[in-house]
């Protein structure tokens, strides 16, 4: 019995998985890191946005243009949109991976979700730039 124990893999990986070369694709750290980076970035950005949005209750388009003519506000708005939707894409990916079974559905949904997030970021960033460069 002692011999059998010694022959087993000391790793948290089955012998079959080892032979097939299954395991980490080394991309987990990037996911983890970007989730934290976007989270940290959003703490000040979200506080800034909440205060700014409170000042724009019932505002008209002219007020939005005046707000976005401040270059710092426009940059913060773009950073918030990018960080929020990047963070959203990472979070939704984990949710899909957890609850959607079957590789085809899982991969398909992740692709659709990612493309949708890219469209959302594009729409948001373009909107901020449009307002930032709009005539007042």
């Amino acid at each position: 019995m002692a011999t059998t124990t010694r022959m087993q893999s000391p790793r948290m990986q089955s012998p079959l998985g080892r032979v097939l070369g299954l395991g980490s694709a080394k991309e987990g750290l990037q996911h983890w890191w970007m989730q934290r980076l976007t989270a940290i970035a959003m703490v000040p950005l979200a506080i800034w946005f909440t205060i700014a949005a409170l000042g724009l209750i019932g505002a008209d388009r002219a007020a939005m243009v005046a707000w976005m003519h401040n270059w710092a506000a426009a940059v913060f708005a773009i950073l918030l949109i990018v960080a929020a939707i990047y963070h959203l894409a990472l979070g939704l990916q984990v949710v899909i991976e957890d609850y959607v079974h079957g590789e085809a559905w899982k991969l398909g949904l992740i692709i659709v979700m990612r493309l949708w997030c890219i469209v959302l970021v594009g729409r948001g960033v373009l909107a901020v730039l449009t307002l930032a460069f709009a005539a007042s």
Partner: protein
Amino acid sequence: MSDPRPLSPHLQIYRWQLTSVLSILHRATGIALVVGAIMLVSWFGSAADGAAPFAAFQGFLGSPVGLIVLFGCSVAFFYHLCNGVRHLWWDTGRGLELKSVYASGYAVLVATVALTVIVWGVGLSRWGH
């Protein structure tokens, strides 16, 4: 799913407790904030589209349905923000003892309610003027 390997017990087997409820809430609010992201982009997007689309969207935000959606998004956001900071604190390897986990959990709930009350208090008082 005909794989005969053992499954871990399903969620309903476990007794409800603060730690698991807050964990589930973090994911639930994260998913709910899909709506928040759409609202954020639509707000800027409609303003970029023109004065009339923006006035329409602002009008929607001020309508009963809009206010309910906005309120839900704000509560979800404040919770996810506070609990997210709690997660970042854990990432430094601190606050992981059971007592600290419960203390920070209650702190997150108090902070969520406080932020919601303050922001909606300021918002509603400004709205009247």
